[in-house]
Each structure stands twice: as structure tokens, then as C-alpha cells.
């Protein structure tokens, strides 16, 4: 019970050394070039088939990509997303036996502004990526992160869409086939996408200096790398979501490998994101309503992808991120990554076990969602709020500890306390936030989920947040205040107001 290796005794004992001139275990002809799993030696051709099949199987099994649908591929330049792009291209090529029928586009978010790159380095990375994107012939969008300062607040408005009925996929496929027959073998799709090539890079990849400074300002108020990485992730999601919406993409593909998802799962647990764990790691994530995020690479380990990219010369671009060249203990995300990778080296089943755990979870629906009004969503990550827990919960216990160690003497003007911390006392007892808001500072806490609260807590000044966030926050607060005012006249409150 304490020692995990107890059940793996037999597995560990039969260590077999890879034979140098082994035959491929699949076709029994070709010379094996790599060993995927213990004892499974594949030749080049079989490996490629296996790899391609896995991608198609993942899409086929989940049946969420409709024919003719516009799908945005989020490409960071890293090995996994580059490989994902290569797989989509492969599926679109004329030789492909069962052509992919959706219409892909590419998005790259240029985060150089917060990752300490200068303008030259950013330019260089963009040029490299552009040349890769151009060869694909797909439309692409290169968006600098600075653009978050131009986002409208509607990005954060949750869109509720009714669940697609199960049979709709088949209906959509049938309809597509019928229309294809009348149009003649779907050639227009290719031409259309190539015709669109001209207006592809129209998306301004430039940014204003004031936005650059504002972004730098925002990240300098975040005290910890953990919070920085979390904020970057949030902003990136918003920007991708917005780009997808204005360009009519209804799906976004992310290149999360199995290894990455295992890391993400443990990271999110450590960040207190347990309630949204399933949405964050599942194949599809429909929290944004009209745009669904999908993760088709989730069956590949990072090793498999490394092999594929090397054997078939898939180009990827190295772009330093926030945690590049940092110590293992620089942030929770970084620490978890090194923990998982190191454990995987000693216990090869780690990643797959953790990954399989994620498949058994589903997002907890807060009990109040049964009423007519949908449950409140977090302002930043748009997952259902998980802070309404009962008194006997970790959330409540934390507030209690804060309150008790602060004692009865309320100290005003504490330098180390952000504006959010000051509100905690009010939140502690009833869960209802104080109405006496400090002027200027917005009380974000009540609008956020447990984990986003932690990120904001690590922030010294919330006023540096992009305008779309603060104005949406104000809007929600006004509505909450309004609701409170008229509360006595509302019949049968569904309890769905914001905290």
C-alpha cells in the first residue's frame, strides 16, 4: 500500500535489451528504427502509419469536428503543436485515403513581450514561423499578446449553447457528402483556402508601444512566476478565443501531448483548479460555449512526437517561454513538470497512469445549476465558480485561518496587503462581499474561482489588468449590486447571483 512498486515487480524484472538489428514487429520485414513501448520495435514506414492512424482515430472517435467546419490550430512553434500541424496537413493532402473535411487555419500568439525577448528576437521568430505557415498554404493569424489590451469585454461573457444532439454529427456528414456531390468532389474547398491565401496575414502582427508597456506593467505587478504563468495562460486563451470568434472558427485545436496533460493535471491540482480539472484536460472543452477547444494530440507521449519530428523532419521553432532557463522550484508549473519528467524516468507508467486518471473525471456541476439561470462563471478562466462550498471545506478553512491570524484588530493601510486581501474579512463569514468597496480598487475576488483568486492575490495592483477585464468586472458588480437592491422583490431566488 505504501510502496507502489509492489505491483510492478514482475514488469521490472524482465528488462530486455533492445537488439540492434531487430525486425519491425508489425510488418516483420523492415528494419526496426525505434522502440515505442517495451519490446515494440517499429520500422520507419509502420511507425508513420501508426502515428497517422492515431491522429485520425482520435478525431474519428470523438466526432466533434464537422465537415466544412472552420478549425483554428493553435501553434506555438514547439514540437507538439508543429507535429499537430503536420498531421493536419498530411490529412488534407491529396494522397490521404480519407481526407480531413474541416477547414483549418493557424494561430500563433507572440508572447515575446512578456518572455523577455527584444523586438529583433520576436521578429526573427515570427519570420521563421511565417515561412513554415506559408508552406502549408493555410490561412494564418499571428497575434501579439499585446492585443489583449484591445479586446472587447464580450470575450468574457459566457455564451450558453445548447448541447448538440448526438445524431447531429452524422447528419452533418451526410449533408456534406450530398453537397460535395453536387459541387463536384470538394475541389472548391482547396481552391477556396488557396484563394484566401492572399488575405491571410492581414491580421496585424504589429502592436502599439503603449500596449507593450501596459503588458510589461501588468506582468511586473505579478510577484510570482506561478502567477505570471497562470496569467499568461489566461490571456492567451482569451486572445485565441477572440480571434477564433471574429474569424468564424468554431473549434480550436491545441497541441497538448499526453505528457503535457499529465503535467497539467498535477499542476492544476496543485493550483487548486480541481473543479475544472476535467475541462482542462479532456479531449474537448466547451466552457466558452460557441468555440470548443479540442486536444487531438492527447494520445501521443512527448517521446513519440520527438521521434516522429526527427524521423520525418517536422520543423519546429524554439521560442523561449516564461520558465525557460529557470530553476526547478521557480514556479508550481515548472516544479510539477520536472517532478513528472523525473518520475517518468524511474517509473515509466507515471504519465499514462496520471493521464488515465483524467479520463475518469468530469467537471463538477455546482448544485445551483439546476435552476433556470446558469451558474456563475469565473471572470478569468470562465469555469464554474467553485467557491460556494459549505463551511467544512478547504476554501472556508483558509479564510478562517486568515481571519484568525489577523485577529480582532483591523489594520488599515497594510503595505503588503493587496486590495483583495482587505476584503477577505467580509467574505469570510457569509460569503457575501462587502458593499463598502474601497474607491478605485475593484473587488475582483467575488467574481473569481478559487485558483484565479490565488493568482490575483499574488498581484500588487489589480488596476494594471487589461481594460476588458476590469470593465467586465465592473459590469458584473453593478449587476450584482442591482440584484441585491431589488432582492426583496424577486420571487424564488435561484441562488445564481454572483456570490
Amino acid at each position, binding site marked *: 500500500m505504501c510502496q507502489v512498486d509492489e505491483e510492478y515487480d514482475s514488469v521490472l524484472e524482465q528488462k530486455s535489451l533492445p537488439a540492434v538489428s531487430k525486425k519491425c514487429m508489425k510488418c516483420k520485414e523492415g528494419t526496426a528504427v525505434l522502440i515505442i513501448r517495451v519490446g515494440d520495435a517499429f520500422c520507419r514506414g509502420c511507425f508513420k502509419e501508426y502515428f497517422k492512424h492515431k491522429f485520425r482515430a482520435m478525431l474519428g472517435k470523438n466526432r466533434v469536428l464537422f465537415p466544412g467546419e472552420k478549425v483554428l490550430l493553435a501553434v506555438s512553434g514547439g514540437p507538439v503543436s508543429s507535429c499537430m500541424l503536420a498531421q493536419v496537413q498530411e490529412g488534407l493532402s491529396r494522397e490521404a485515403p480519407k481526407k480531413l473535411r474541416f477547414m483549418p487555419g493557424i494561430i500563433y500568439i507572440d508572447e515575446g513581450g512578456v518572455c523577455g525577448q527584444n523586438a529583433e528576437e520576436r521578429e526573427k521568430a515570427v519570420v521563421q514561423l511565417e515561412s513554415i505557415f506559408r508552406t502549408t498554404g493555410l490561412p494564418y493569424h499571428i497575434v501579439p499578446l499585446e492585443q489583449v489590451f484591445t479586446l472587447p469585454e464580450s470575450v468574457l461573457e459566457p455564451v450558453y449553447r445548447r448541447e448538440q444532439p448526438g445524431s447531429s454529427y452524422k447528419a452533418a456528414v451526410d449533408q456534406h457528402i450530398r453537397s460535395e456531390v453536387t459541387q463536384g468532389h470538394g475541389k472548391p474547398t482547396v481552391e477556396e483556402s488557396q484563394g484566401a491565401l492572399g488575405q491571410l496575414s492581414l491580421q496585424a502582427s504589429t502592436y502599439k508601444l503603449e500596449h507593450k508597456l501596459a503588458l510589461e506593467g501588468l506582468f511586473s505587478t505579478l510577484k510570482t512566476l506561478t502567477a505570471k504563468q497562470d496569467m499568461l495562460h489566461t490571456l492567451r486563451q482569451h486572445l485565441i478565443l477572440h480571434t477564433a470568434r471574429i474569424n468564424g472558427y468554431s473549434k480550436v485545436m491545441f497541441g497538448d501531448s499526453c505528457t503535457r496533460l499529465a503535467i497539467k493535471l498535477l499542476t492544476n491540482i496543485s493550483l487548486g483548479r480541481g473543479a475544472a480539472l476535467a475541462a482542462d484536460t479532456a479531449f474537448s472543452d466547451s466552457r466558452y460555449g460557441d468555440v470548443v477547444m479540442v486536444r487531438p494530440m492527447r494520445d501521443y507521449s512527448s517521446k513519440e512526437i520527438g521521434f516522429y519530428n526527427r524521423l520525418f523532419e517536422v520543423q519546429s521553432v524554439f521560442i523561449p517561454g516564461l520558465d525557460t532557463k529557470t530553476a526547478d522550484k521557480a514556479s508550481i508549473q515548472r516544479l510539477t513538470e520536472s517532478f513528472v519528467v523525473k518520475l517518468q524516468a524511474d517509473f515509466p507508467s507515471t504519465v499514462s497512469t496520471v493521464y488515465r486518471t483524467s479520463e*475518469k473525471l468530469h467537471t463538477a456541476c455546482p448544485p445551483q445549476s439546476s435552476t433556470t439561470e446558469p451558474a456563475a462563471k469565473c471572470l478569468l478562466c470562465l469555469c464554474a465558480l467553485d467557491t460556494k462550498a459549505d463551511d467544512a471545506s478547504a476554501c472556508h478553512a483558509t479564510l478562517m485561518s486568515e481571519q484568525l491570524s489577523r485577529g480582532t484588530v483591523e489594520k488599515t493601510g497594510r503595505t503588503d496587503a493587496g486590495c483583495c486581501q482587505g476584503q477577505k474579512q467580509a467574505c469570510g463569514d457569509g460569503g457575501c462581499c462587502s458593499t463598502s468597496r474601497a474607491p478605485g480598487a475593484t473587488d475582483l475576488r467575488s467574481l473569481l474561482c478559487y485558483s484565479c483568486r*490565488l493568482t490575483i492575490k499574488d498581484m500588487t495592483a489589480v488596476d494594471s489588468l487589461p481594460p476588458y477585464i476590469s470593465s467586465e468586472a465592473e459590469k458584473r458588480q453593478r449587476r450584482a449590486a442591482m440584484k441585491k437592491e431589488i432582492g426583496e422583490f424577486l420571487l424564488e431566488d435561484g441562488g445564481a447571483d454572483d456570490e
Partner: protein
Amino acid sequence: MPIQCSSCAKNRAMLRRPKTGHSLCKSCFFWAFEEEIHQTIVSARLFNPGETVGIGASGGKDSTVLAHVLKVLNERYDYRLKLLLLSVDEGITGYRDDSLETVKRNQQQYDLPLTIVSYEELYGWTMDAIVKQVGLKNNCTFCGVFRRQALDRGAMMLNVDKICTGHNADDVAETVLMNVLRGDIARLRRCTAISTASDGEGGIPRCKPLKYAYEKEIVLYAYFKKLDYFSTECVYSPNAYRGHARTFLKDLEAVRPSAIMDIIHSGENLSVKEGVKMPVQGTCSRCGYISSQALCKSCVLLVGLNRGLPKLGIGKHHRLHDKILAQQALTQQEEKKLKAMNF
């Protein structure tokens, strides 16, 4: 310049709370620490007035602090509980015999009645004897399974209504991580519960009043209260895999002190997909203890020990349960697999 206590703003702060980072004086820390446990007990409705509560006491810091705090709170808030100490003697020379001495001293210091149940009288085996047969590998499986049942059996003998154990926040968070790493979805769902279901017919409800108390704060509390506790690692526990999870948790705590609570929060908010197969609780057909299989784990382990096949209970051999129940002999091949390895 001395730092002032952030709670009373009068005394000099003596410590920085690991949980919140506030600087507190000694008396404010004691008060906050005890008050938090009181809040946990009240909000989770752990006890009812008039109940007899057995405290699982090992002599270590957690159970020593638990016994102390429960006694204090029982008097302060008039819980009207009858508190008892309950210890398990695994029979580990050089470890448990010493720690039991501490429990015996605690008994006198806190004036609580103490009962000791031993593996030897319950199972006829001491851990020393088990290790002699099994070797140093997997022996924790025996000890853990037996202890859980021993505590229940002791509690039944004393006729207590509830058992509480000294599991702290670090332990709970670590268990969440362990269950994710092991892919044990059933335990992942259960492990953050503060008490086991009380309505179940199987066994006496257990609870963890220290669930939200940081291990570091427990040590601080024991240190400043000058509590007498025993702190030695068990002589038989290498605990390789759990060790990784523990180190990881400590590192997480160093990066962000709230991480321990954050993990517990995550664990409390997880929910499992419908259709995922879950073990069904039943009872052991041999001893009547709760079990998800025909035979409970400790019976399987015991049969294994008595037949000289220690590996019977290690790993999954559910198929053999019927044979064991029918007292049939195992085939030679099966026996060979289950014998201890000789080096």
C-alpha cells in the same frame, strides 16, 4: 526591530505562521490553532454531545497534538465527549516499544484512559516476525492493512462511537497526489472526506480533526507547548514512491505555502464520471470486516502468512479468494509464485 503580533498588536511576534505568513505571538498562535480545529469540528459536525471518542495515539507529533487539543477544546467548549486513547502495538522493536512509552506518559499527562491492542494478540504475528518472513519489501502493506483493522477492533472492544486520527493537511494533500499518481479513482474520491460515512454498517466512523492543520504548525504547536512526543522513522519503512510525493509536496509548499490547502480544495471539488467502475463495499465472508472483495485484505494477508505464502496478499490475486475460502490447496505453480523470494 521586533515584529509585532499581527493579531493582538501588543506582544512581540514569536513565529511566522507557515499557513498564512502572518507573524504571531505565542498565545495568539495557540489560540488561532486551537480555534481553527474547533471550527473544523463544529462546521463538519464531527461529534455529538455525550459520545465516546477514541483517539488513535501513536506517540508521534500529530496524535499527541490531537489528544492535547481535543482535551483542551472539550473543556473549553464543553463538547461533553468522553475521550480515550487507543494505541496499536505492531511489535516493532526499537520503534513502537519506544513510542508506546510516550503514549503511556501522555496518558498520565492528559489523564486519559489508554488501551493498547497488539498485532500479536489479534493476529498472532508481530511485525518483526512478519518482516522475518516477508523481507523488507512490501512489509508496509501488512502493517498498514493490519493497523487499520486493529484500530477498529480496539475501538469495538472499548465500545467507542467514533475514532479520530491525527492525519494533517499535509497527509491529506499527499494522499490526493498519491492517488492521482496511482490512478486510484475510488480512493481519490474518498480521501479528502473529513470523516467516513457514519451510517455504514461496516465499522466505526473515523474522522480527521487536523485535516486543515499544516504539519509545520503542528510541530510549532508541540514545540511551543513543550509537548512530549516521539519522533523516529519506522525502522522498516523505506516508502520509496510515497517519498517522491512527499518531497514534491514539500517543494510545492516552498513555492507557494497555500499549495497544501489548494490541493485539498482540488480534491474536494473533483467529481468522478458516471460509468467509471467503482468498488462496491461488502463484508468479508471470513471475519465480517468491511471489504470490497469476498475476503478482506487482512484475511488474505493472514492466510498468506500462515500458509507460508506471503505474496498472496501483495498485488491482485482475487481469483484465488474462492480457493482460500473453500480451504482448497493451491497448485504448485501458484504456490511457487507466492513464496517469498530467497536471495
